[in-house]
């Protein structure tokens, strides 16, 4: 890790110093059981090991009539496995400060493990048991079901959660992406032990698995670990095909008696493997990326004091792509804010960024890349992301030169491609009396 950090840090140093690809790269492939792709960053600075992995599939593999299976499973794997019941399993993790967690994303079932290297054998043993032989005893199953039920209930009145659920349902009708990750109260109640086991046996396999390991472990030991943890899983996953979908247009207004109206907006995006993706990434940064100098931040917050925060991002899923943004403003100023956002996006689509904006954005993105790699856990996450997106093991070295190569024409083209349809989706969550989804702000579907 130290070496990797130093190398990345070069970018911060010289700004436009591109790291030559010939230099030794400290990410290496390690041999796992057949089908398993695993990368390692070997580093002994801190006596710990962080590992992130993903099984392709995710919540999109939930049965169509039972959304929430993958999510429920993600909470149950550490609640008893093999001969250990829930309490014993949790105590074993706790006594050795082993952190193990799972998360069901839209397209992938994620896991991460963090352990002191002195406890690694116990940690790998517990992870192997969790993946290979979870118990699903009645007490933890019902307890976790109750926790998720409470969370679903809570989400109904939470403006952020309510907006997310509604936007997904509208943008992806009759598609797995449109279903709630946590499930509904009804689907959750119907999930059985068999559903959990069926998901596990179909999705936890070796040919859809990617693993990123960072820390105090040799390639040889990593190979042994991979064989122990993942070797006994089936060689092939049995996945249900998922259709590609373009996010649908829509206007959503959810009535909640809050003083502030939450606004979400977005539209179709661009594929991760599209040649214009990096340019799109940069122009999104200029429009609404995470710094205080973006166009939307300047117009909405700095000039007019309409919101505390506003941002946009690119969403790249396995079967759909979108740009998505959000802000929140005093309920009576929501219509004005939406109009301003639409106007800014339209102008940006037509004109694209200025040369100065592009130069500044590139400089920021190149320099800040190193900051994504400043801890073992963050490195593991970054590397797994590179694996999932199939960007290649040399991507960390190449990435800044890809940003550097973006010309103003590339940027203008990407802005046009991304934003010329404007915001086809607008959702508001706020008091109905200031409802913002009027005909005037609606955009006809142009898909």
């Amino acid at each position: 890790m130290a070496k990797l950090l130093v190398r990345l840090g070069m970018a911060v140093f010289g700004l436009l110093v591109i790291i030559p690809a010939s230099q030794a790269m400290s990410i290496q492939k390690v041999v796992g059981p057949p089908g398993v792709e695993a990368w390692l960053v070997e580093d002994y600075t801190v006596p710990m090991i962080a590992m992130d992995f993903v099984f392709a599939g995710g919540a999109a593999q939930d049965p169509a009539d039972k959304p929430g299976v993958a999510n429920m499973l993600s909470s149950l794997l550490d609640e008893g496995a093999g001969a250990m019941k829930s309490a014993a399993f949790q105590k074993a993790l706790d006594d050795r400060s082993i952190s193990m967690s799972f998360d069901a994303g839209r397209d992938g079932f994620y896991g991460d493990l963090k352990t002191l290297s002195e406890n690694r054998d116990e940690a790998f043993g517990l992870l192997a048991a969790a993946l290979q032989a979870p118990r699903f005893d009645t007490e933890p199953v019902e307890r976790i079901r109750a926790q998720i039920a409470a969370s679903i209930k809570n989400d109904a009145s939470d403006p952020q959660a309510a907006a997310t659920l509604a936007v997904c349902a509208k943008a992806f009708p009759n598609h797995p992406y449109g279903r709630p990750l946590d499930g509904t109260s009804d689907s959750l109640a119907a999930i059985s032990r068999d559903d959990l086991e069926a998901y596990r046996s179909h999705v936890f396999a070796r040919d859809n698995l990617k693993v990123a390991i960072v820390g105090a472990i040799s390639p040889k030991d990593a190979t042994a670990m991979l064989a122990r943890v993942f070797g006994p899983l089936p060689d092939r996953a049995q996945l249900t095909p998922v259709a590609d979908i373009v996010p649908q247009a829509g206007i959503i207004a959810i009535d909640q008696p809050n003083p502030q109206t939450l606004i979400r907006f977005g539209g179709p995006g661009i594929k991760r493997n599209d040649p214009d993706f990096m340019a799109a990434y940069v122009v999104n940064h200029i429009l609404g990326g995470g710094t205080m100098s973006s166009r939307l931040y300047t117009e909405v917050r700095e000039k007019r004091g309409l919101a505390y925060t506003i941002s946009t991002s690119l969403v790249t899923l396995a079967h759909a792509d979108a740009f998505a943004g959000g802000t929140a403003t005093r309920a009576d100023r929501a219509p004005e804010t939406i109009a301003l956002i639409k106007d800014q996006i339209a102008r940006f689509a037509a004109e694209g960024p200025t040369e100065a904006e592009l130069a500044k954005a590139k400089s920021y993105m190149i320099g800040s890349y190193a900051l994504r790699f400043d801890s073992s856990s963050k490195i593991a996450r970054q590397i797994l992301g590179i694996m999932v997106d199939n960007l290649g093991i040399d991507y960390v070295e190449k990435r800044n030169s890809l940003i550097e190569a973006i010309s103003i024409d590339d940027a203008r083209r990407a802005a046009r491609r991304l934003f010329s349809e404007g915001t086809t989706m607008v959702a508001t969550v706020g008091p109905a009396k200031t409802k913002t989804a009027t005909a005037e702000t609606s955009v006809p579907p142009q898909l």
Partner: protein
Amino acid sequence: MDQRSLIPDRTRFLAAPHLFIALLVVVCLAGFARTPAFADEPVRIAPDATTFTLDNGMQVVVVPDHRAPIVTHMVWYKIGAADDPPGKSGIAHFLEHLMFKGTKAHPAGEFSSKVSEGGGQENAFTTADATAYFQTIGKERLGTVMAFEADRMEGLDLSEKTVLSERDVILEERRMRIDNDPGALLGEAMNAALYQNHHYGIPTIGWMQEMQGLTAADALAQYRHYYTPNNAILVVAGDVTPEEVHRLADVTFGRVPRRSEPGERNRPKEPPPLAARSVDLVDSRVSQPSWQRDYLVPSYSSGKPGEAEALDVLADILGRGTTSRLYRALVIDQGLATSAGSYYSGEALDYGRFGVYASPRGDVPLAKLQTAVDAVIADIRDHGVTAEELASAKQRTRAQAIYAQDSQAMLARIIGMALATGQPLDAVQGWPARIGDVTVEDISAAAKTFLDVRRSVTGTLTPAPAEGRS
């Protein structure tokens, strides 16, 4: 995800002009150790850190971390929301926002542009006790950010228009963080009841009606009194040496004259807590009820030796994670709750807070939940903890201290917060060892003294039928 906790954000932190940053509730349960020890040897947090003071009274701490050519640069001022004058609640936080509005030498946006062009990240936040500004950036730019930061320590230049527009921003921030969230409103009400006299009872962001009247003059009055080098702490963590930092500090911060003497931080204290209080918030926007209790306890700065450490370990055994007593009893054994736990928040100048929370499972009434929580608390108060529980809590502390070696920014934050709330650097470094010294007797004494309902506020959050709405 093991525990779907509905615990509201109960930190007194308020971030920040730019992006929302989640901060750890128990900042102290993280640390930094360069030389990981044998299993029974106490880990020392940031063992290489050094401190010195500039001629104008500004304290400097340097934490070398040479893993990457990056530095985290933070300036802390010893002024927080608990220093807001009566009727001006929110002014410390408003001033934090206005510090991004430019100086006589550098117009608004110039500093931020310099940071972002270098790929750096910046932010700021306000707590009840302190206001901090920070940048994480390539180390060759350290001198530049120090020069800009020193400039805005004395050169802030505010126009009326800027101030009014930024006031709208903090009003939106309040709506987003507090008014849109019944759980946050309950937290505010509980805080106001817990502190009967101390200004910790005032929300960091301010009460809406007072925020609406804040002016540039209010902000500048605080600025002139508190933003002076002798009331500031510089923390630099990263790929630097103390000598380099000293040299850079001398020609930047070192040139800012002392312009006031804020003096001792002697704020109004609490009377003896005699009356248990309860606060019940009923709101049509609540769909999931919850229960919580806060006890008035000492902080790391105000407690007697060992008291805060004992409270830290007590909170861990009582309510951290799924093997804790509260989770086991309420969530697993009795099946009354979906979540239950406790925490100790001790990084404050005058008082700490010991929090306990639970959310009911299904339609379990909150009264029943409270009875069950009370039984767990009574048991630990009357019978203490076991040697095994204590040993395993200490083991977790040690592991967390090693894990936290990973984050330079978090380390700068831990040290800055401790120093801004009156602890010496040495106390931060020796924290794991002091946790190692905690005995079962210390924990019993802390539980008996502090888990006393008279010191507490109990809060409930329950749904109400919507009124006058179709």
